């Protein structure tokens, strides 16, 4: 019983922290676009262009 007196307020405190963190994330705009991230894995990232590719004008 004594354990519960400690554990329950502790879990409520954790619960509040979790909720506060979620609220912060929402306000920071992390959940604004829930559709586009689903397409991200489908995009290929190009190999890093180490230097500018040679561009010649041919006229």
């Amino acid at each position, binding site marked *: *019983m004594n354990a*519960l007196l400690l554990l*329950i307020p502790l*879990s*409520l405190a954790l*619960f509040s922290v*979790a*909720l506060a963190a*979620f*609220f912060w994330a*929402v*306000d*920071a*705009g992390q*959940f*604004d*676009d829930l*559709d*586009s991230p689903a*397409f991200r894995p*489908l*995009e*290929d990232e*190009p190999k*890093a*262009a180490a230097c*500018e*590719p*040679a*561009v*010649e*004008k*041919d*006229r």
Partner: protein
Amino acid sequence: MATTGQELGTARCDHCGEPLPAAAPREVLAGEPRHFCCSGCAAAARLIHRHGLADFYRLRDRMEAPRPGAVADFGAWDGAEWLEPHLRRGEGGGLALTLGVGGMRCGACAWLIRRRLEGIPGVRHAAVELITGRLHLEWDPSRVTLSALLAALAELGYSPVLPGDPGAGERERTEHRRFLKRLAVAALGSMQAMMFAEALYLDLAGAMPLATRDAFRWFAFLLTTPVVFYAGWPFLAGMARELRQRAPAMDTLIASGTLAAYLGSLIETLRGGLHVWYDAAAMFVLFLLAARYLEWRQRAQARGLVDAIAGAEFRPALRYRADGTLEAVDPRVLVPGDMVLVPSGEALPADGRLLVDAELDESLLTGEPHPVARRAGESACGGSVPVGVAVRLAIERPSDQSTRATLARLAARALAARGAEGERAERIAVGFVSVVLILTLIACLAWILIEPGRAFEVTLAMLVVTCPCALTLALPTARSSVVAALARRGVIAIQPGSLDALARADHLLFDKTGTLSEGAPKLLAVRDLTGMGAEALAVASALAAGIAHPWRDAFGASDGRQAEHVRYLPGRGLEGRVGGTRYRLGHGDFVGGGDVLRLARVDGSAIAPIAEFEVDDPPRKDAAEALAALRALGLDIEIASGDASSRVARLARRLGVARWHGAMRAEDKLALLRKRRAEGRRVLAVGDGANDAPLLAAAEVSMALAEGASLSQRSADWVLLGARLSRIPEAIWLARRYRRVVAQNLAWAIGYNLIALPFAALGFIAPWLAALGMAASSLAVTANSARLLARARAGGGEGR
């Protein structure tokens, strides 16, 4: 899928896919020779390669890119007054702006724009929303100007567009965030409350010490309070609103059930009574809030999709400055006297006087599929599109007084007059709720007199057992299911409340140009006059290849022949050299007489006709099929078009439609609608042009084609993607199914309550039994609604 000119086989621009002219710019990029149709595409490709973004060509799934047009100076956007309402403060200083982007074709475009913009120093954040085509920009104004960013966008060929309503994006964002926060509180709170409730439930032997039991109850109270009052606020506020209007409906039912469970539990906790129902109150709020959120998201997505399809209201207009250079401005700031340049293929921003001869495609305004020739000095309407050559225009009326704006006002008036009809099912729900509340009140009072100890329990049992879920959950579920099923078939709901009207429609009013017909002239027949045979067609396609004119699509790709020195003379036609010989393609004396489209060879001053082409606007491939399916559903078909009567008659004959009207203006179509309504018919109007907007707004239920004018889409209840007419009978069939399911749900709800309510009123049903009954009933009703989601491939009708 072919993504380069070489792969396509014919001579096409490597960037945008348009046919190549004779002197095509050539560049060697990444070690390969590339050909482009113009210097704009060449510049865009060079830019893409220079910034290491050449993967764009590999990523894209179709051979198309927007063609960079006259890149104007966006300087007018910096610090512009009309931009103020759209600008926001960015996170961490700086400015933020949400724009529409015209010309995005697929995910690769979104990727390209994002990578290009984020590479510019001073840009904090550039996010492109794929589904809605919106660009969210955040930048530091002290390091880079907005005009520089917009120029970067335009260099790639995309056009920045201001969304019509500056506040809408912001409002939607705020509402979305509020929903998420409420859902989080509801979910976490109800799970925690359930934890305590479980402990209390499992105490079957009643062995829990009272102190513990009370402690648990108070904890549950602590957790349920924010759920009921913060997460459940929309329902409480909704109930207050409904009671003020004396029209109790869903919100009243939900809120009263929740409050009853909550307050009752509080009283029992204080009294030390037998049962508490905190978890019921919390779960109630959670599930119904989740249903509401899903519904809201669906509607927001539909709105976003329509905005993206429409390409948003405003394209920047190209205005001439005093020194002759061009600047890009919001068309709303144009005043009479301004001179603008309108590239071919783009709409005139406002009514004005033409400064050059031109041919204008006025089909979205009048329904005429063939371009109309106008001379310099004549007036032209905002919204019409020049073909062949760019047009210089002197503005005569500000854009809010243009013809298009007048049509928009007519449509808005009609929409307002239609008013909030509401579905019949909702009206029944209102009646039901009122009856239940009155009966509950009576029973409550009766019990207070007879045996006050049980009064509250009975009241709670009555409110809970009446299964508000039959209405509050099942109706939205049914509606969401149908809306989702329709969206999968390419029919987007702008006004989901019009499902009922869609099911009850018995008369169809179709527009012709762009709706039943393709809207663009197609080559129907070739009459060979001199025996040149296929040569004539090849010459004609070569001539038509270089211009933005409906003929280019009608004649198709050339066989590699190039035409040189091609000139387009508005009102007359094309002239150019193919293989050394001069040819003309056009009408009238220009090609030796007659008013049929002709190809003629020019030798000095002699004009020798070679072939005649029959070009007309054919019906869509699935039009006949769709009309047959619609007749099978018991609907009458009528055509009302702005096009010439002879052409309408021809189409009507081909499609077997008995009643048709030609040469109709927007007002005439409205008059026809009123006539049919007076006859007692329920009209479904289908159209695509700006001149259809008033009709679409006024009809009981209406559908606009995604390829049509943005104004028509804003005035309609449904938007049809991909111009698949065969989806219309499918949509009607689904809407009728929806009505049947809703009727079934209502019948069940009423029947179940007729039995359960009296039992509850007489005290035979304990609250836990009531909760069980409610859960079982809700499940049955929701499962019934979910049937609508099923992919009925061959479900008894046109499900395809």
